[in-house]
């Protein structure tokens, strides 16, 4: 009865506080949407980003054509043809384009001669007559790949690797051609077999979890919606601590302290009310992830298949956030102290916990520290559910840590609040 009365009172106070409502519901919604949009490009990374690459083909032969056709097949590269090598270097240097591939004149011819010399050496070594060739070492003009210094390292590696792969494939094909010509004669149709090196060993890429499709990979929405939802849930300390300290300053808390046995129902009522608000925030943010994100051109939030696990995690995060808010509320004496410490601490816990950037990109020491943040426990649990389709048992360690954190903060809050009743 007393707990319900406190929940009703808290609800009335919150409904009549438009600023508090905006802080709890509107600002987090804006935050989730903005962060998902901003981080969309970095999350899409090379695989999903359209990169403009300047291409200069001074070879005008097979090698240049092969490189061009290989890159043209890539959905992430847009080739900008350029005739002048210096101009190509210049536009990359200026940052207009991220990279340039310059195939030098005579590259194909040089590669053919080099291959022919190689075959001749192999045949001679085995005691067979090889192709007639000039044994003089010829310089191979290198394919130049120029990068904007501001290019991301993984883009640089991807383009460089792709060029090397094309050249290696071309070289392999030409060596086989040369071998066939040498062994079977150029007129024999049997000798003209085309060897496809791409199918020699198949590399099949798949995700380790069962029942997971492309929808479930880590992208901006999959990361930002649960991450910033938890951040917003922990910011419940703003209305919670703000109202609590206001009640203390205005005197209404004093009257409650004068009512016997009110400490537990007051604290529990507040806890349950703000726990409910946190859950409401969670549901709202998830709905935004499912229905609003696709309207903004972002991927739809995929929840995985363990809905019960999601509810358990959401409840435990809500408990932890409310417990932390209560602790801040009872511990500090002025709203300025509580809200300054509260907001900064939540930002730190969020940053360390992997809300801003995934934990795996952090330095090793931070990765260890991140395991101490309740936001990390929640995020790991959501990632397990959303991305790895984990069973409830797998999220249990993180959920138990969140519940333990909530219980400890709640009990300390009640103890501090009660101990201040008699000083």
């Amino acid at each position, binding site marked *: *009865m007393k707990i319900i009365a406190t929940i009703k009172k808290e609800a009335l106070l919150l409904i009549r506080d438009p600023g508090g409502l905006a802080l709890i519901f509107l600002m987090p919604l804006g935050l989730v949407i903005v962060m998902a949009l901003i981080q969309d490009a970095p999350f899409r990374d090379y695989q999903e980003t359209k990169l403009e690459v300047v291409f200069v083909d001074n070879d005008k032969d097979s090698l240049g054509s092969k490189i061009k056709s290989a890159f043209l097949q890539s959905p992430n590269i847009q080739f900008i043809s350029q005739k002048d090598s210096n101009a190509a270097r210049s536009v990359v240097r200026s940052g207009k384009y991220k990279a340039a591939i310059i195939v030098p004149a005579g590259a194909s011819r040089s590669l053919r001669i080099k291959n022919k010399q190689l075959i001749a050496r192999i045949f001679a070594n085995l005691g067979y007559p090889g192709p007639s060739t000039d044994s003089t070492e010829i310089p191979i003009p290198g394919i130049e790949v120029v990068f904007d210094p501001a290019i991301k390292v993984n883009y640089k590696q991807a383009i460089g690797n792709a060029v090397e792969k094309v050249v290696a494939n071309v070289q392999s094909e030409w060596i086989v051609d040369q071998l066939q010509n040498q062994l079977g004669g150029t007129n024999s149709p049997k000798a003209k077999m085309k060897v496809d090196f791409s199918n020699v060993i198949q590399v099949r890429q798949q995700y380790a979890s069962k029942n997971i499709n492309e929808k479930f990979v880590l992208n901006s929405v999959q990361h930002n919606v649960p991450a910033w939802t938890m951040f917003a849930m922990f910011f419940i300390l703003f209305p919670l601590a703000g109202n609590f300290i206001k009640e203390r300053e205005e005197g209404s808390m004093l009257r409650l302290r*004068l*009512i016997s046995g009110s400490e537990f129902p007051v604290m529990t009522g507040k806890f349950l009310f703000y726990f409910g608000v946190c859950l409401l925030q969670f549901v709202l943010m998830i709905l935004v992830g499912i229905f609003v994100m696709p309207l903004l051109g972002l991927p739809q939030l995929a929840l995985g298949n363990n809905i019960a696990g999601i509810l358990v995690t959401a409840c435990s995060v809500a408990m932890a956030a409310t417990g932390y808010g209560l602790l801040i509320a009872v511990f500090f004496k002025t709203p300025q102290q509580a809200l300054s410490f509260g907001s900064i601490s939540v930002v730190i816990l969020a940053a360390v916990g992997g809300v801003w950037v995934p934990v795996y990109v952090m330095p090793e020491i931070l990765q260890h520290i991140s395991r101490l943040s309740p936001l990390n426990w929640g995020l790991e649990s959501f990632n397990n559910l959303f991305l790895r389709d984990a069973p409830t048992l797998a999220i249990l360690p993180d959920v138990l840590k969140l519940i333990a954190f909530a219980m400890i903060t709640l009990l300390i809050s009640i103890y501090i609040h009660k101990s201040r009743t008699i000083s």
Partner: protein
Amino acid sequence: MNDAIVSIQSITKKYKGALQPAINALSLQIPAGSVFGLLGPNGAGKSTLVMMLCGLMSPDSGSIRLLGMDTQENGTDIRRRIGVATQEIALFPMLTATENLRYFGEMYGLPERAINQKIALYLDEFDLAEKANKRVHSFSGGMKRRLNLIAALLHDPTLLILDEPTAGVDVQSRNILLEFLMSLKNKNITIIYSSHFLEEAEKICNRMAIIDEGKLVTEGVPAELVGEQQDCATLESLFLKLTGKHIRD
């Protein structure tokens, strides 16, 4: 005094870092059914004493017994039977008068029917019925004080402790408050009335104590206290004589 509802035995309270104790070896008996005035200049120790009577603060030494119970051992039971109107307006400004009273009634554990009856009765008695559904933040100082007193009365306390109940209110509100308090004299409720206003205290109190610098200066029936001092014709002159004329901050 055998029928004392409050028995204070040589209590001392010194705040951390303070040079002098706020309450210094103070002993006092407050008879049941009395309207007892607790008077003193600023910083005399009145609010500290009130806090200790409510069980919100414990003395460093000595003991306080309220309703036959020790405040340190039976604080919970004592608070159930006392009503306190604090110097601060202890209400929720964003709730209406009814919502405030309903919430406090529920926290006292009163049944809903009793809460409704008391809200209607007291709002009418204190001339606040028309403002029942208005939020408290829109109330005048006098209206807030009246509502603050109602909140302390909801659970029918045996002992009512009032700390500066008329501070900052207009004449009309003060009149309503005082008339109501005088009406309680007949209902066997003991009232401890801490105030700066000597005239008010003289008007409604049948016993009073003057304290200064944490010590009891005098205690008794107001008229007798004045009569005991040959050169004091009024309570104010007695007060000034006993506590001095220098300004207190």
